[in-house]
């Protein structure tokens, strides 16, 4: 695939109607191709995300949304292409470099650390970012981070579960914890992988409320299966199918796109 070195200016831009304008994008995916065995999970994907953008990636199961996401987050190394985050080429940097670049992510299946408490989970998100990885004794810094974790837990409605093991939380609470671990590090770029999946209606409302409360500067990339949540949060929507970008535009444009209807007809009725 056309991997044309590093041309910093003039990103090739997604073919959709509203490509990001203005300053250099925060996250830039260029000509990324991922193959799992014989299966092409992503085919020559380009995506540029501007600072403060709220972008949703939509698509049916198997469209490659999560793979794209994992490429940006560093969990999957693409066969070709590049990922530039804040001007840093990241394709061969493992996922552990992402927090330093101000990137936080959640996982589609809640991957809280099951044997640790809510407080400890959030504490580790903070410790991971701040490089407090290996001290063999506790100090005042740990206590402060524990208190900070409690504040974050409060923000994601888990104040009552602070000392509960993450593995014993309900599914919805685990998603809340995922979000808490992401927002604890005060990231500039937040990658949310299907944050609404498996949530009840009430929990969805709360989720949307929380996402809407985020700072304007925060760049939000959302992978969603649920069009409802995606359309409420996102200002730009990219639709994928079979590892390729199908269309992109504002929620209204995408909602009206007959191609999108066709893609979704088999799996889910359009909202």
């Amino acid at each position, binding site marked *: 695939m056309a991997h044309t070195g590093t041309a910093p200016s003039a990103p090739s831009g997604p073919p959709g109607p509203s490509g990001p304008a203005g300053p250099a994008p925060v996250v830039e995916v260029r000509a990324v191709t991922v193959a799992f065995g014989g299966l092409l999970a992503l085919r020559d994907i380009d995506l540029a995300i501007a600072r403060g953008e709220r972008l949703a990636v939509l698509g049916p199961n198997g469209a490659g949304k999560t793979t794209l996401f994992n490429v940006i*987050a*560093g*969990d999957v190394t693409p066969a070709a292409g590049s990922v530039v985050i804040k001007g840093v080429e990241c394709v061969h940097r*493992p*996922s*552990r*470099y*992402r*927090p*330093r670049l101000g990137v936080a*992510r959640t*996982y589609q299946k809640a*991957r*809280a*650390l*099951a*044997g*640790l*408490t809510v*407080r*400890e*989970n959030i*504490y*580790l*998100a903070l*410790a*991971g*970012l701040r*490089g*407090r*990885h*290996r*001290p*063999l*004794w*506790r100090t005042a810094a*740990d*206590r402060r981070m*524990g*208190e900070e974790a409690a504040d974050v837990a409060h923000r994601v409605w888990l104040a009552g579960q602070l*000392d509960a*093991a993450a*593995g*014993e939380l309900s599914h919805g609470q685990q998603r809340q914890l995922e979000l808490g*671990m992401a927002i604890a590090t005060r990231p500039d770029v937040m990658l949310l992988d299907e944050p609404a999946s498996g949530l009840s209606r009430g929990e969805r409302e709360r989720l949307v409320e929380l996402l809407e409360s985020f700072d304007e500067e925060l760049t939000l990339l959302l992978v969603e299966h649920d069009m409802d949540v995606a359309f409420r949060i996102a200002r730009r929507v990219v639709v994928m199918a079979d590892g390729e970008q199908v269309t992109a535009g504002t929620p209204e444009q995408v909602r009206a796109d007959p191609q999108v209807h066709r893609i979704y007809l088999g799996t889910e009725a359009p909202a």
Partner: protein
Amino acid sequence: MTARDLLTRSNLLGAALVVVLLVLPSLATAYFVNFVMTQTFILGLAAATIVFLAKYGGMISLAQFLLFGVAGFMFGNAAQETGARGLNLGWHPWAAVVFALAVTTAAAFVLGALASRSTGLYFLMLTMVYAVIGYYVFAQIVEISGPGGLTSIQRPDLLGPPVRLYYAGLGLSVLAYVGFRAVGRTAFGLALQGVRDDPVRMASLGFNVPLHRALAFTLAGFAAGAGGLLNVWWNGQIDPASIAIGPTLILLIIAVIGGISSFEGAWLGAFVYVLIFTYLRDLPLIDRVGITEARFNTVIGVIVLVIMMLSPEGLTGIARRLRRRLRPPARTGPAPSTGPPLPVRTTEKELGVTRR
């Protein structure tokens, strides 16, 4: 943590146990103290390093007994003077101690780094390979193991009388027990438990997962080395056969008997093991039912089998269940959940081996 928080029932119980063990030499026979109990401390310390790696890191290591042996061989080589077998470096005993611990810790780091990308069964197999390789290294390089092992190894004068070795074992055991548990609440220990639960997640939080595993293995190796020094002082000798695959498995069995996810279990398992090997022969009529010394391993095997079937959490798991059953139901209800800022969870953890 305030002084009041420390006054929990289990802490008081532990303190009482330590007091009993402190005065034990004036209560029990010298044989019980210097043979049974000292050996319990030594094996318990080594088994506790298995528990540390299994409980916090989800890594079941079969290399702990090798590291235990490395420390012993290194001490013997460094401390013994000319005329004995081995390298006969003739160093001051405490210099030899530092040397032995340094070599053991370095070896643990290298072995841990090599195994740091394996988990579960693969980690177990890899550490078993370490144990086998280690055995052959010492069996075949006779320059460092002396043909047939190093003998008449003297312990430092400070630990001359056997009862001092008992106290050294007690002290190191208490230190390891308190230390390992405390580490579980530090940044390092919490991150290690995070690595056990979900390494991919921990990487995305910014942690270097393989390095973290390697460092945990190094820490456990250091503690195993300390146990190995006690062992070589207690035995007065060490030979390659004593770190062969048989003893290696026995250490794992000790950890399993006690309960591989509890530190208490390491010493409890060691105590039970030593008791059986010491006193089984004295039971009346035991030889009439065909249990002679050669059958002791069979007895141990049956005990392990029964424990595994009754309680995968080992003897400590059984004890915990009994306590729960005996306690009046009103008290088992809402447990008081005060604790340090980052309290250890109360749930029992399974091994975590099957987790990624």
